[in-house]
């Protein structure tokens, strides 16, 4: 009870910076339309997608029983990016525009393909470090192919595309926000329904099995949901690094628990805050030039990953 209570307190305090950011905007911006048409969707996008990214990482870490799993590090974001880039280029050439939902579907397809690939490899290697190396390599391959295509897709759309392939929350529209919040909300609800089986799955697969968990179904759900979350992010903001991997660790350290019922909302909140702060830094530090969001998240996220690995070396395993 105490744990849940502290967890709720933390998620409660998460709301405060959210409010501050919104208020800060209201005072700084003089033009109402810019605020509503550009800033608001962008903040909302960072908020929703940040949460989605953190949860995607959380689910993957649960799935692989591996603390250094995340959608970016395992190449899943890059796989989704590749497919989305293909769809964008094809649609730009054929002069039709793609809806947000269709982008999510194609990103989901891309992330599933890479996930399955990583899964097949992970069956062969039981080694944590090796799995990560493989994921990073797959990510590089996908990124290289994407770069290749972006370079050759000579089109007016290319500026946007290049921007997107670096990862950015810019160019968000209210319409996008509507689609993503619907999808993310749906996935969030389903993740909550998995909280109970996840709580014992963390202790090991056979452990969960003997408590009556349908382990196979749970594994499929974990994969589908984490793929869906990261697909949403990639479709709208491109690949964003280190949020999925770092935020769950920060949250675990703050909450001092591994209870999914606490961690799921806390991770979502944590991811939101992390992304909004990073996006703010990306926009403001060198303004009017924008940094890519990944640049900022990497600066804050990668030390966390290093810390986790060092701590794991010290402890058992």
């Amino acid at each position, binding site marked *: 009870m105490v744990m849940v209570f502290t967890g709720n307190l933390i998620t409660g305090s998460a709301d405060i910076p959210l409010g501050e950011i919104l208020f800060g905007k209201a005072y700084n911006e003089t033009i109402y339309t810019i605020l509503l048409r550009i800033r608001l969707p962008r903040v909302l996008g960072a908020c929703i997608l940040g949460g989605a990214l953190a949860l995607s990482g959380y689910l993957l870490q649960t799935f692989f029983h591996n603390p250094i799993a995340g959608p970016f590090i395992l190449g899943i974001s890059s796989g989704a990016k590749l497919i989305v880039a293909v769809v964008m280029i094809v649609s730009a050439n054929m002069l039709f525009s793609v809806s947000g939902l269709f982008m999510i579907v194609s990103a989901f397809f891309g992330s599933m393909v890479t996930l399955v690939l990583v899964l097949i490899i992970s069956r062969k290697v039981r080694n944590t470090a090796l799995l990560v190396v493989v994921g990073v390599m797959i990510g590089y391959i996908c990124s290289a192919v994407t770069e290749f295509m972006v370079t050759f897709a000579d089109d007016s759309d290319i500026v946007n595309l290049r921007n997107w392939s670096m990862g950015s929350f810019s160019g968000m529209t209210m319409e996008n926000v509507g689609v993503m919040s619907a999808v993310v909300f749906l996935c969030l609800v389903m993740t909550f*329904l998995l909280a*109970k089986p996840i709580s014992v799955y963390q*202790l090991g697969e056979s452990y969960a099995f*003997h408590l009556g968990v349908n382990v196979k179904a749970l594994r499929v759900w974990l994969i589908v949901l984490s793929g869906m979350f990261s697909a949403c992010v990639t479709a709208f903001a491109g690949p964003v690094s280190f949020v999925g991997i770092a935020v769950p660790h920060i949250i675990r350290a703050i909450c001092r628990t591994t209870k999914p019922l606490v961690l799921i909302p806390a991770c979502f909140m944590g991811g939101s805050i992390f992304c909004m702060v990073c996006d703010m830094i990306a926009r403001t530090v060198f303004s009017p030039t924008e940094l890519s969001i990944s640049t900022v998240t990497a600066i804050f996220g990668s030390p966390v990953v290093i810390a986790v690995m060092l701590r794991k070396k010290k402890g*058992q395993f």
Partner: protein
Amino acid sequence: MLLQTDNLTVGYDGQAVIEAVCLHIRKGEIVTLIGANGSGKSTILKTIAGTLEKISGRILFMEKNLEDFSRKEKAEKFSVMFTEKVHTELMSCQEVVETGRYPYTDYFGRLSQTDRQAVEEAIQLVDIEDFADKDFSQISDGQRQRVLLAKAICQQPEILILDEPTSYLDIHHKIRFLEILRKLVAEKQMAVLISMHELDFAEKISDYTVAVKDGKVVHYGKPDTIFTAENICDLFSIPKDLYHQYLGKMTK
């Protein structure tokens, strides 16, 4: 009869490891499985627990086919403790024990009054109150085995399946562990199916013993008929003279 296997063949990927296993266990009985490393004791236990698919034969639980029980029903009637290590992060021993209530809790896994009572009782029974608040990953092997036993107990099963639970414990903890099992059987009429390497203890705690060698059950019966020098030498391929030199005082 609580649990019965009828001509059960077990193994991995369709390859039989042990054939024609016929064993039975009643409420309030301890049945031990003995045999050399790799003889297939764990394979039998895993098949009964449902981790492995059986190859042929039948497993009857309360005179019904085991397959007819749902996942949840099985979890309420069987508790298992295998040799795989359990990794936890930031979980107290109490929380680990609480996971045993999984089949009984509501959709979000909240504990009811009955659940809490069962947890409390199990913790007292295995005597782990002193370190119930400690982090599970930071206690000794012996303590960890007791916590896992408490988890298995609070699941309130009809039958407890234990695979070499005492192997890594020192003699003090071995004796304490087995004493708890005896108490469980006497007080709660639980049935215990256990594999172990400690022949001296197996002889003393079991109602029936199953001896496994070379892909079949070679002996099955009351311990006093099984724990003879001749049987043990044969079962573990120990030369007679070495047996008397090293184990002579432990068994007859």
